[in-house]
């Protein structure tokens, strides 16, 4: 007992431990945030290189580089790695770094569990990626893994995939519990809920969504496991089950999941737009309500992913109306951002460039989302490249640009140095051009009738596919530049002041840059 008391008395005075144990045993939110971000970028490159394989095969009609079996493994792994390995951990990393700084807390509420949440991720992805080397290959049924292609007809590695998903789920749920406990319990005195920075608000709601839907994902993969190994018939009509049941349960998870991947970006973008407009965020309260409304609606729209599976008419109409309704709060957010910029005093440093691109391109993704919501029209769009274009427009310039914007915005706080602005802008413009070149033609391909997830296609799709591949290679190669910029920024550069951005607001800018290893051991007063 006395030993414990001793370590306690030291705890406010020490810096990071040295060597590898610093990272293995850490309980520090900044260390854990850093690990999440590094892991996420590694997964981004891995998932991205799979996208390069896909685009290389689709560069021309015919089978050139890979066989269809392997192509399907690539589309599946690309999706899984990007969703669960790149985007989600990146936001958790940002949350770890920034939430305690933004609310004036000494750390996350449950620091040891926080470290466990992180370390489960490399473990899960080790298992997932190892399936590529197993007999019969990796999962090849798409990231949505519809039964019975993923059960009766799945490769043996499906079982490993299921347990990898379980581990990711445990990690996400614990991470989310930590976020909620931190936000609800560790805010500095005076910081009422409606004074919380928007990034904190969006993460609070995201964490709620995570806790609500990750267990459902665990449930559905468990049903798959039982169907594969223990003779149950959840997804087999000959035993009274239904393959469509899989889709209902999956998308009950899956739709909130897509908001999990965008809401924190909404929060970060709100700070950035306001900072570089040198003007307070327009409509703070309505922003909060809009995020809440989007989150709640996300629970009752799942079947819009399933308009062609033969949902009865009344269901079809309900899900169409509910989905269209989401456009209202989403619109409110976009209008608020634009109005925040309106009559501001704008400058366009790299974070702002990414933020402005975010607003424009995410809105385009939102528009195609609204089109997809119209059920009769969806019969033509569904499972074509139009859908691929849609979700890449909300995920790449949405989630990914949001993450880049946030990373550039807070890099000075993390490293104590300014990043290289010229290189940052180069990174932005190459990404922007590459991304649009890659994904905009996909709208045309889809409307012209090209189905998604095919390794080979009819000749009328050849031109746009080639353009798209060129854009994708450009976007992919550009991301190496980001790695270079971050490494350069960590190693040196112009010293960053506590508040490097003229218009930035919030507690995180009251601590020095780089942020000390321990911050807010005594909570600040918020007026």
């Amino acid at each position, binding site marked *: 007992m006395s030993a414990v008391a001793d370590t306690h008395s030291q*705890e406010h005075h020490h810096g990071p431990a040295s060597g590898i144990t610093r990272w293995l045993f850490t309980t520090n939110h900044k260390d854990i945030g850093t690990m999440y971000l590094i892991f996420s970028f590694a997964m981004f490159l891995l998932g991205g290189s799979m996208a390069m394989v896909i685009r290389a095969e689709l560069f021309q009609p015919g089978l050139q580089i890979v066989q269809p079996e392997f192509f399907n493994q690539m589309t599946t792994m690309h999706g899984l790695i990007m969703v669960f390995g790149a985007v989600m951990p990146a936001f958790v990393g940002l949350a770890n770094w920034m939430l305690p700084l933004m609310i004036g807390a000494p750390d996350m509420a449950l620091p040891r569990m926080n470290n466990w949440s992180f370390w489960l991720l490399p473990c899960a992805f080790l298992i997932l990626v190892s399936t590529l080397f197993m007999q019969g290959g990796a999962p090849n049924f798409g990231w949505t893994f519809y039964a019975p292609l993923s059960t009766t007809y799945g490769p043996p590695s499906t079982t490993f995939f299921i*347990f990898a998903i379980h581990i990711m789920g445990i990690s996400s749920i614990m991470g989310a519990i930590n976020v909620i406990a931190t936000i609800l319990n560790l805010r500095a005195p005076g910081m009422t809920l409606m004074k919380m920075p928007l990034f904190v608000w969006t993460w609070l709601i995201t964490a709620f969504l995570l806790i609500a839907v990750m267990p*459902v994902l665990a449930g559905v993969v468990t049903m798959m496991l039982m169907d594969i190994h223990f003779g149950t018939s959840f997804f087999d009509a000959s035993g009274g*089950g239904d393959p469509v049941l899989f889709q209902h349960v999956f998308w009950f998870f899956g739709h909130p999941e897509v908001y999990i991947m965008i809401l924190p970006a909404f929060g970060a973008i709100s700070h950035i737009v306001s900072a570089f407009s040198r003007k307070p965020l327009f409509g703070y309260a309505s922003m909060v309500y809009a995020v809440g409304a989007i989150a709640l609606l996300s629970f009752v729209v799942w079947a819009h992913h399933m308009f062609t599976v033969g949902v009865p008419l009344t269901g079809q109409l309900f899900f169409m109306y509910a989905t269209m309704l989401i456009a209202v709060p989403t619109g409110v957010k976009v209008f608020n951002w634009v109005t925040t910029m309106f009559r501001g005093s704008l400058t366009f440093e790299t974070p702002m460039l990414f933020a402005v691109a975010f607003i424009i391109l995410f809105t385009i993704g939102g528009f195609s989302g609204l089109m997809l919501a119209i059920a009769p029209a969806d019969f033509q769009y569904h499972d074509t490249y139009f859908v691929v274009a849609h979700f890449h427009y909300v995920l790449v310039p949405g989630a990914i640009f949001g993450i880049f914007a946030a990373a550039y915005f807070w890099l000075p706080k993390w490293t104590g140095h300014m990043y290289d602005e010229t290189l940052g802008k180069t990174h932005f413009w190459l990404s922007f051009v590459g991304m649009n070149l890659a994904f905009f033609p996909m709208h045309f391909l889809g409307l012209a009738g090209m189905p998604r997830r095919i390794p080979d296609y009819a000749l009328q799709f050849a031109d746009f596919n080639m353009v798209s591949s060129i854009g994708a290679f450009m976007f992919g190669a550009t991301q190496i530049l980001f790695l270079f910029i971050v490494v350069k920024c960590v190693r040196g550069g112009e010293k960053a002041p506590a508040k490097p951005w003229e218009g930035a607001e919030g507690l995180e800018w009251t601590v020095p840059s780089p942020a000390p290893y321990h911050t807010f051991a005594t909570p600040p007063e918020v007026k």
Partner: protein
Amino acid sequence: MAQEQSYYVPEQSKWPIIATVGLGLTLYGVASIMVNAKQGESTTLSWLMFFAGALVMAYMLFGWFGSVIREGRAGLYSDQMDRSFRWGMSWFIFSEVMFFAAFFGALFYVRVFAVPWLGGEGDKATANMLWEGFQASWPLVNNPDPEAYPGPKEIIGPWGLPLINTILLVSSSFTITVAHHALKAGNRQKLKLWLGATILLGLAFLVLQAEEYMHAYQDLDLTLSSGIYGSTFFMLTGFHGAHVTLGTIMLIVMFFRVQKGHFTEDSHFGFEASSWYWHFVDVVWLCLFVFVYII
């Protein structure tokens, strides 16, 4: 004592990484046992891996919880820390609720939609074309393809063992509450008595549940593979049973901690968390009793 006012941020800890290794080994082991068994290959290595993982997990659980208990008893946790634990446990239980919701959702879906459609009723009645002679009913005793999925001879009615189990679990919710009040009143003898009674009720429930499963498998041909009725029945009651087991283990740990003199009248979160969990499995059972057995 001023330090107690600040929020306790623990030192570096080896437990998370040990927990990761343990969980990874265990689950990788389980997965490869399943895959190898299905392909008729040797599972010896996989079992070794599984046991190694389970050992590491056990070591980790003792170690991690042990240090949390020591810290708590050393007075390192402020009221604010206590609230973090409360939020943590509440949201963990909420996540468990959602896990069960997935399986209840599956049950409602097959009962309300899939099975009637297959039997030629409702919006998608044409499905019956593919299953000539199949009649929808619930409990589903004759499956659409009886060769692939031979149905159960009979199912388990609600008014035998399940009713007794309901009475056992509901009473155990009362006994744990009485124990909690005894703890708050500082009456250790009464606490031990009622906590012990709760554990016994939980164990009795598990024994009867095992009895019921054996009856289902041996006498009724009601199994996991007897079609969607068996699938939903065993997955729902089975996961519930697993949670009762976990809850009982938690209560047993609490019993030993009480024996060792842990907990005070106003600081006993470990006990409260276990009792929350116990109430949660009780509520799940009530839902099961209504939706799986009665209706």
